[in-house]
């Protein structure tokens, strides 16, 4: 990599915290107002814990950054650090309003220090590495499992979110005694939409830097940027139109979810796909998210306040599979399917089992009082909006 490319890569990586900020804002906005400050504090805490755990333990456990000493980190290490910090934020939204701060940090430490480095190195490593990356060279499956941006990171985050919602169970009063779902709308749609917009440069930075670092072929950075933006636009548009068609009005939170799902889809193939193919993939992601959110909430009783499972796991998996459709290389689809099978069949049970053990050691779910009061008052001692929001629950205290 030339010095100019290194400088470009560094600049792109420095944009990634915007994606984290956007995701943190979205998580807080789609939760309840009496847990908003808690959500933002938890975001800062998990990013901190993820960074420290990865640098101190994870990079050595997985051999992800061989010989990395603290004085001279590589761009590869920085890219993994950024991706991991983003990954750590994903399950947060699924555990909104009920996941204790200490448990959040503990789960993140294990994820960043152990699961992520082991899995990424041995199984889900970038192009050409690990068992999946070498499917092409060793087993003749296309170019091996392809994922140039961070599709695997998104899917991992979504899988973590599913494990967390299983362990935490639904929020208080989310389901009526007869099992019917009760809507608990996000508390600040302006914040949610602002988060969506803030994310875009961060995502372009993440996709661009990963493509520069890991692509075996020459890539076009403008194409990465255009594809990232196009996927988000198509997915948000599809989600907005679909909700308008189905419910008579455009649903703001599902449109926001569609936007993020588009960004997630772009992560896998932004450097490989043509803009028209990306447009199609984004639109499908927007449609998938709407149906997936509804299915999880209404049919199987999974309470995921910000739709992290649908946005990151479902759209992430679709992004990885869609590469197989559009690469037109013999065996490529099978390679992508083997990658998805690994993420679902190996990673999900492992992540769930580890979180289950942690939950037995340090309870994940806050006490009933905490849920009644709100996480802000219960765990932080002060609310995010102390002067102008009063819940009926709070008034009864």
């Amino acid at each position, binding site marked *: 990599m030339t010095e100019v490319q290194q400088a470009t890569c560094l600049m792109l990586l420095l944009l990634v915290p915007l994606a984290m900020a956007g995701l943190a804002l979205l998580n807080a906005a789609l939760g309840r107002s009496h847990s908003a400050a808690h959500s933002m504090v938890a975001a800062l805490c998990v990013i901190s814990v993820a960074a420290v755990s990865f640098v101190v333990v994870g990079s050595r456990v997985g051999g992800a950054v061989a010989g990395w000493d603290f004085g001279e980190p590589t761009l590869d290490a920085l890219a993994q650090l950024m991706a991991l910090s983003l990954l750590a934020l994903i399950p947060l939204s699924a555990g909104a309003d009920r996941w204790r701060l200490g448990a959040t940090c503990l789960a993140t430490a294990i994820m960043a220090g152990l699961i992520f480095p082991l899995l990424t190195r041995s199984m889900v490593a970038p192009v050409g590495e690990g068992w999946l990356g070498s499917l092409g060279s060793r087993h003749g499956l296309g170019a091996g499992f392809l994922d140039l941006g961070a599709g695997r990171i998104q899917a991992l985050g979504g899988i973590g979110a599913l494990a967390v919602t299983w362990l935490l169970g639904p929020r208080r009063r989310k389901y009526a005694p007869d099992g019917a779902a009760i809507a608990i709308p996000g508390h600040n749609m302006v914040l949610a939409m602002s988060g969506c917009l803030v994310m875009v440069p961060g995502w372009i930075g993440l996709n661009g830097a990963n493509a520069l670092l890991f692509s075996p072929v020459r890539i076009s950075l403008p194409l990465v940027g255009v594809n990232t933006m196009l996927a988000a636009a198509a997915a948000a548009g599809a989600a907005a139109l679909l909700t308008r068609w189905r419910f008579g009005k455009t649903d703001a939170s599902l449109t926001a979810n569609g936007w993020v799902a588009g960004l997630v889809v772009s992560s896998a193939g932004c450097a490989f796909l043509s803009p028209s193919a990306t447009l199609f993939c984004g639109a499908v992601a927007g449609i998938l998210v709407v149906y997936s959110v509804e299915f999880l909430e209404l049919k199987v*009783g999974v309470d995921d306040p910000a739709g992290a499972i649908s946005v990151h796991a479902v759209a992430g998996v679709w992004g990885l599979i869609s590469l197989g459709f559009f690469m037109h290389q013999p065996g490529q689809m099978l390679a992508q399917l083997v990658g998805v099978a690994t993420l679902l069949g190996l990673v999900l049970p492992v992540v769930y089992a580890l979180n289950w053990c942690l939950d037995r050691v340090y309870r994940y779910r806050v006490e009933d009082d905490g849920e009644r009061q709100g996480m802000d008052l219960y765990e932080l001692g002060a609310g995010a909006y102390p002067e102008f929001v009063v819940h009926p629950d709070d008034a009864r205290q």
Partner: protein
Amino acid sequence: MRAAGLLLMLSGWALVFGAVQMLHGAVPRAAFVGAGLAVEALGLGLALSRQVAR
């Protein structure tokens, strides 16, 4: 049900892993990977069976 589902998913992945490692023909490999994915889907379906409302 969830534990059974997750174990079924692991079995599905073992089938996929075995197919990639041990089979060489494109058709049998694709068939076994497909079967592994089907077992995983079944496991996911079991694991996702409705939670008790709180």
